[in-house]
């Protein structure tokens, strides 16, 4: 039940804050109060979630994330999510996941990803946007930002070919080579070699050669050989390596 049903959000903001803080102290669920406020006055809600005198309690922020639509009505997403992350560092990955799900094509997610994920920047964003039309654009943006480990981590868990192509397009050739191998380890039929050639140029032998130290399984090596048909000298080299590999 809302604890502020008798209050006017435009006039009684201080009282509303006090009651929310009391609810939190008493370990009561602030959800009904928050939803009441979201319905009646999203701007007041935004003030009480990310404003200078908002209750600093992770339960309140987590609860507020459930009314994110109302918050976005009051505050532009770019500023809203940055402020949420700033105020609730313990929820930052959850906040980034939510932002990426709701705004998969937003360019500000690139910087926010770096801020939150560090070395793994891009993993959450790409995972959340992998079914969205902006996915390829996002791969290119993360590659341009130099988020190499994140792109490789995403490839390892998804087998998608786009990150390797994005890395090649931005001349991160060694990372592209690793991503090629990881994509084929996950999905032996992934058209990753083909996509890298489409992004890099017709002669990808220099990148293909860089894949060799990263091959960890015969299965991936055979897949690479199948996809790399047409580069005769690389094929000879790879065949030599394959013949020396144990089955895995």
């Amino acid at each position, binding site marked *: 039940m809302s604890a502020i049903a008798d209050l006017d959000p435009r006039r009684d903001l201080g009282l509303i804050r006090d009651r929310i803080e009391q609810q939190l102290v008493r370990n009561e669920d602030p959800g009904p109060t928050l939803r009441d406020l979201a319905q009646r006055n999203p701007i007041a809600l935004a003030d009480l979630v990310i404003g200078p005198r908002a209750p600093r309690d992770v339960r309140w922020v987590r609860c507020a994330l459930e009314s994110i639509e109302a918050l976005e009505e009051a505050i532009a997403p770019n500023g809203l999510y940055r402020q949420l992350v700033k105020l609730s560092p313990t929820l930052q990955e959850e906040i980034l996941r939510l932002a990426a799900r709701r705004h998969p094509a937003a360019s500000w997610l690139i910087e926010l990803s770096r801020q939150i994920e560090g070395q793994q920047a891009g993993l959450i964003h790409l995972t959340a946007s992998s079914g969205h039309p902006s996915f390829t654009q996002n791969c290119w943006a993360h590659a341009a930002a130099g988020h190499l480990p994140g792109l490789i981590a995403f490839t390892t868990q998804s087998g998608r070919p786009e990150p390797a192509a994005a890395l090649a397009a931005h001349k991160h050739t060694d990372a592209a080579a690793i991503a090629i191998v990881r994509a084929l380890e996950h999905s032996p039929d992934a058209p990753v070699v083909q*996509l890298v050639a*489409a*992004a890099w*140029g*017709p*002669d990808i032998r220099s990148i293909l050669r860089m894949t060799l130290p990263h091959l960890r399984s015969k299965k991936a090596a055979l897949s690479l050989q199948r996809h790399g048909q*047409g580069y005769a000298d690389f094929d000879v080299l790879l065949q030599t390596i394959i013949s020396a590999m144990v089955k895995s």
Partner: protein
Amino acid sequence: MSPNAFLHGDPGRLPFLGHFRADRAWGQGTISVAGRIHSRGDVVRAFRAARLIESAVQSTSLDAVSDRHQALAAVWQQLYTIDACDFGTDNGSDLVVLFVSSDTVGTGISGVGLGGVWALEDDVFAPLVQGDHPLLSGPGRPEQLAGVLTLDQAHGTIVGVPHDHTQPPKSTEWQQKCGVHP
């Protein structure tokens, strides 16, 4: 100086979809080929078709060739033996290719689907073929090539642009635009 042919990529994130390049040398000269096939199709078929063309160029017998015209004819004939269905869903009607064939006497260029051809001279691109020159035909695989333009001087780098993206090459970015990574 052996002339090398290059083709500009298309705009977008995958500018080299279906692009191919191959160079051959024979006793008295060289032939260089750059082009694209199935560039609006799926990436797997485009890649396969492009590698097939490179392989065809590499496997062309040039043993009996005695001049640049014969070398060009031999390579074109070899490309013509490829089944149309191997070129993708357009059966080769979207083929764009630039040939640069040279011998001790001179250099000739030919091709299909080109919107212009430039040569790099002292770090500046000079037009070799542009406008309504008969060499600039539509894409595809005619039984005979449109003809050969003989160049009056030697060039090391010759860049073609496809008929549907005719922006001239620039000396500062031609390698990137052609997918060349020295």
